[in-house]
């Protein structure tokens, strides 16, 4: 969408493609990561009876900027025993994996990097790159803790992709679309059209869908938590056991890449939950722009609603992180294979039956 618009203005396809591909990074990911790191520290501090960063700027709002400057200045340290090529490449791959997700996410009805018809499948596929990056980092570090962390992480991400995919499959079956844009458009106008409340279906079908969708939403939220290695599933970087898992040996900007990727991922999975179940960029109750006749206002409102929903789920992730202890690696696997996968299969089956009504 944005690409066509830019193309019309500039007339150069390369230039517009370049701008479009950089937009999410500078408009969204970097500011978001800056904010989210600070928010995480502030949220955790207030949950724990502390103040959090207070020195840099008003109530510490510039703390992350100071941290980034510090990270930039740091020596780029590569331990002697590492596999240097893989070691240097791994953070890029991890970051690329989480960055590429943003290409297909519809921030509003006109701000979509690439309107791929297979949006959902694309997102699930590029997230797979992250696993490769993490394994690479763990192996190349030549450190037992890193290797254990990377192995755990790979096992965990791959396992938890199954329930995620099964729920996504259910949604695809109900709505008949793979495009995130079409999916968002289906849930238009009011919040009772959101998938969590049965989506665009009507009558008995809608009522039957609601419990399935609520359980499905929980399943997908839990499994995406595991996919981005957040508490209670943060065992790949469990600091009390594995120091910091696969990125133990990294410092400076390479560490910052992992860090940035983690926060970008946090938002990406929250955005997926928001798109699939909570109407994506759709407002819960109509648009102010339509009501007062200023139609150019609508995409801005949509952008607002989308980020608000995404940030809400990011906040829930932080909330969980500072409340819950972490699972042990076998319990984590048991939880996925014994509970989440059977539940999502049942949901898939029931949703299929209901759609026959």
């Amino acid at each position, binding site marked *: 969408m944005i690409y066509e618009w830019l193309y019309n203005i500039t007339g150069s396809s390369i230039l517009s493609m370049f701008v479009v591909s950089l937009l999410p990074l500078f408009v969204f990911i970097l500011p978001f990561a800056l904010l989210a790191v600070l928010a995480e520290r502030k949220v*955790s501090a207030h*949950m*724990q*009876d*502390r103040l959090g960063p207070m020195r840099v700027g008003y109530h510490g709002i510039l703390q992350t900027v100071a941290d980034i400057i510090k990270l930039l200045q740091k020596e780029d340290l590569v331990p002697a025993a590492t596999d240097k090529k893989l070691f240097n490449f791994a953070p890029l791959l991890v970051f690329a994996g989480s960055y590429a997700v943003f290409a297909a996410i519809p921030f509003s009805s006109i701000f979509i990097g690439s309107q791929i018809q297979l949006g959902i499948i694309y997102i699930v596929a590029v997230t797979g790159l992250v696993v490769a990056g993490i394994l690479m980092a763990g192996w190349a570090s030549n450190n*037992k*803790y890193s290797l*254990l962390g990377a192995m755990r992480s790979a096992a965990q991400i791959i396992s938890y992709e199954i329930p995620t995919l099964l729920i996504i499959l259910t949604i695809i079956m109900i709505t008949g679309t793979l495009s995130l844009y079409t999916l968002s458009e289906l849930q238009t106008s009011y919040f009772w059209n959101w998938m969590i409340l049965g989506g665009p279906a009507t009558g008995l079908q809608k009522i039957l869908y609601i419990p399935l969708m609520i359980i499905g939403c929980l399943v997908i939220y839990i499994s995406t938590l595991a996919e981005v290695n957040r*508490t*209670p599933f*943060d*065992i790949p970087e*469990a*600091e*009390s*056991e594995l*120091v910091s898992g696969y990125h133990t040996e990294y410092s400076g900007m390479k560490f910052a890449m992992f860090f940035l990727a983690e926060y970008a991922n946090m938002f990406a999975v929250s955005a997926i939950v928001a798109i699939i179940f909570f109407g994506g960029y759709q407002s819960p109750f109509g648009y102010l722009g339509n009501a007062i006749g200023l139609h150019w206002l609508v995409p801005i409102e949509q952008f607002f609603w989308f980020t608000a929903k995404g940030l809400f789920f990011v906040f829930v992730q932080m909330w969980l992180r*500072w*409340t*819950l*202890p*972490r*699972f*042990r*690696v*076998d*319990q984590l696997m048991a939880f996925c294979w014994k509970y989440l996968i059977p539940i999502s299969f049942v949901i898939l089956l029931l949703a299929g039956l209901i759609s026959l009504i």
Partner: protein
Amino acid sequence: MALKTEEMVLNMGPQHPSTHGVLRLELQLEGEIIKDVIPHIGYLHRCFEKHSEAMTYPQVIPYTDRMDYLASMYNEFGYALAMERLMGIEVPERVEYIRVIMGELQRIASHLVALGTYGADIGAFTPFLFCFRDRERILHLFEITCGARLLYNYIWIGGLSNDLHPDFIRLTKEFIKDFKPNLKELNDLLSFNAIFIERTADVGILPLETAINYGVTGPNLRASGMKWDLRKDDPYSVYNKFDYEIPVGSGEKGKIGDCWDRYFIRVREMEESLKIIEQAIEQIPDGDVKSAIPKRVKPPEGQIYTRVENPRGELGYFIISDGSLNPSRVKVRAPSFVTMQVFPELCKGFMVADVVAILGSIDIVLGEIDR
């Protein structure tokens, strides 16, 4: 073709976030399953026992502080008690009461560190800060009393270095009042959290038989189901004047003597300690805390073994006097040191993540193991 597999040796520590000090564990792993654990201790050895021989008796007290640095008050308590028995000193009643109050406050402070860090080991970081918030109040009480927050040199042979601060009683009452709801909050947040129970129940089970064979004492022994507490079973000071219970492990969430039992026994001990402090504050008599301090500490020739129930178990002092101003020998029976020996038994067959859970649950202090 069968894949060739081999055991991996993972070196945990001495610089590791959850070895609670400078402990080095050599883990022999098969995948993530523990085959064997070899603890390497001694990174914090400061020759306490040998050093004491060159000191006069009162000069040893600051050194006892530095053994179990989370329960310094109790180390001094034990040493002072041993010396008083050796020299036959009767201490004023007020001194005994203050020692008990300090000792129990120290027990709460020590258990708070144990529980908080245990939560952090399991991955819940918030309880850690809640516990330290409450411990801070206790440290403040110590600070107004003797000026130090960690290493007090407060309990002297025959008396105390200072009387209580005028605000002490009021602040202690306020602390008890505020601490009770906080303890409930800790239970809601951590003790009865489903994930926490999943992680700790049925993990690192210490059978009573093994515990007795290894000489494990304190909360770890009681969690295995034995009602053995020196405050009741070998009473010293004024402990027999108070009404309190000795909690024992019940196997509520798993088998008796698992990590959860060892964790929860400490929560319940804090409640009992609060009871003791409340009663002691009510009954505390007036008096001079320095009246019985001897001018010159020169015990008669002889030897004594005195044991007290410190937050980690039976802390024993064996002192041999040759009649001079310096001790001929000071031997300490350190509860953490004894508990550490049973640790490899607890770990076998569990996973790497459980090592952290088990190590946290036996609550060792490296300063005391290495001395």
